[in-house]
């Protein structure tokens, strides 16, 4: 069951449909990742034109989500997939929902970045924000990678990074609160920055969800709402 062999159906057309579906999810993943990278860059560099392009190009991700959903519906209706094929379709449907939400978060960061760009003064906490963002984007990248390879081991590892991101976000929030207290005139902008940090933290959560779907796809066990320790105990090869 470890290897899903989606190219080994007797119906070659079915192979193509599943392969096409998987490719589209990867394309969507790539688009989402790019949006996140640009959003972070626009935020840190105060690049208003880049921020604007992030804030206005989310529609492409949305339309791809709709397209993939329609394809899944068609495969369910026409092929009545079972076992690993069925899990594949369910995984795709759930994964694209999370990817679309990540796209929304990137869009939000883009919009805040646009507002912040006008009053841009690089602050010390920008480097912490940059660090959090890089960390999150790396996690998103690796979760997409785990999906592409259907690699349970790395999915478990990537999901395991989520608590670090939560901690980083906590620390950053505390620092931003301090700044707000020091300089009440900056409260509005610092709050905006906090919203961006919050969005980054959410992207980490969604990436971690994608990893859980990968475990479901390969192992057939639903690991949502199970503690990270239990997941690691059960599925990690080298604990």
């Amino acid at each position: 069951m470890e290897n899903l062999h989606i190219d080994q159906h007797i119906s070659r057309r079915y192979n193509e449909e599943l392969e096409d579906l998987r490719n589209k999810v990867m394309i969507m993943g790539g688009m989402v990742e790019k949006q996140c990278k640009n959003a972070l860059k626009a935020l840190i560099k105060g690049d208003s034109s880049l921020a604007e392009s992030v804030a206005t190009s989310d529609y492409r991700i949305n339309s791809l989500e709709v397209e993939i959903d329609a394809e899944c519906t068609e495969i369910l209706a026409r092929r009545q997939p079972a076992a690993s094929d069925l899990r594949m379709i369910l995984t795709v449907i759930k994964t694209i929902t999370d990817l679309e939400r990540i796209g929304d978060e990137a869009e939000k960061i883009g919009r805040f970045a646009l507002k912040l760009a006008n009053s841009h003064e690089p602050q010390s906490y920008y480097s912490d924000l940059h660090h959090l963002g890089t960390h999150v984007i790396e996690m998103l990248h690796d979760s997409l990678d785990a999906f592409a390879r259907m690699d349970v081991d790395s999915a478990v590892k990537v999901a395991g990074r989520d608590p670090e991101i939560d901690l980083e976000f906590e620390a950053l929030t505390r620092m931003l609160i301090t700044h707000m207290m020091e300089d009440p005139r900056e409260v509005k902008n610092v709050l905006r920055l906090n919203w961006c940090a919050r969005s980054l933290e959410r992207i980490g959560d969604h990436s971690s969800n994608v990893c859980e779907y990968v475990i479901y796809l390969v192992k057939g066990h639903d690991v949502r709402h199970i503690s990270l320790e239990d997941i690691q105990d059960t599925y990690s090869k080298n604990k």
Partner: protein
Amino acid sequence: MDTVSMRKEHNIPGESAVMDKQLADKPLEGIVENLRECDVRESKKVHQYETIGKPFTDNARISARDVNVYYGDKQAIIDASLDIGSNEVLAMIGPSGCGKSTFLRCINRMNDIIPICRVEGSITLDGEDIYGSDMDTVLLRARVGMVFQKPNPFPKSIYENVAYGPRIHGLAHNKAEMDDIVEKSLRRASLFDEVKDQLDKPGTGLSGGQQQRLCIARAIAVSPEVILMDEPCSALDPIATARIEELIDELKEKYTIAIVTHSMQQAARVSQRTAYFHLGKIIEVGDTREIFTTPQHELTENYITGRFG
């Protein structure tokens, strides 16, 4: 079932050669490695393969243990052990020539009529040995009824089709009792309302789906404990199929049902447990829910998802 077609089903050298080639192309674990040797049924190692999943139940009505079936010197079933629980529907699936129909026919000794067929091991019905010397096959087949792939009503009236069994088994003492049995059986097969005004018309004049329900009514008229179905819907349209499936679901309240089907969706819809057969072995048995979402064995997975494994 005549001898020739039975022999044909289980003696297809071409097919098994193709399978062996496919298996040789893609080495798998366990049984498959053993199956790669040119004739599976002669391989010693294949006997060591243990069915995975849950072949046994606590409330077994039929218990088969270490059943081996041979047609002449060809082995069609290898060490099959399986329980069929009370009031459950067991679906048997697998590629052609895997032994599922043979296994089904063993349960009411339909294979007795094939001279070259030999059955070893034990099959019990409520603890009684089906192959015991004191077992009367006529009574056995009343207790274990069968519905075949093609509807095969007797060339008699609808009424007589259903009344025939109860009459030869002496289940009715007068016309009123017989009328009662016929009506109840037809009702239970959800056919009565459609045919109540034409009970004296020939059964062969009904539509395919109605004929199949007539055959089910005929099988349940003698109050069996177990009903065996060998692809009961393969000749029917989707609406008639849905009716039969609905009926199977109702019948399981009263009877134990084993169904052989080539339609995976049908097995998924009607059964509580599913057994997957492959080249004479029972590879995997389990809750239908699990077999169709997370099968354990790669061969089961490949079969139900339409892959060439």
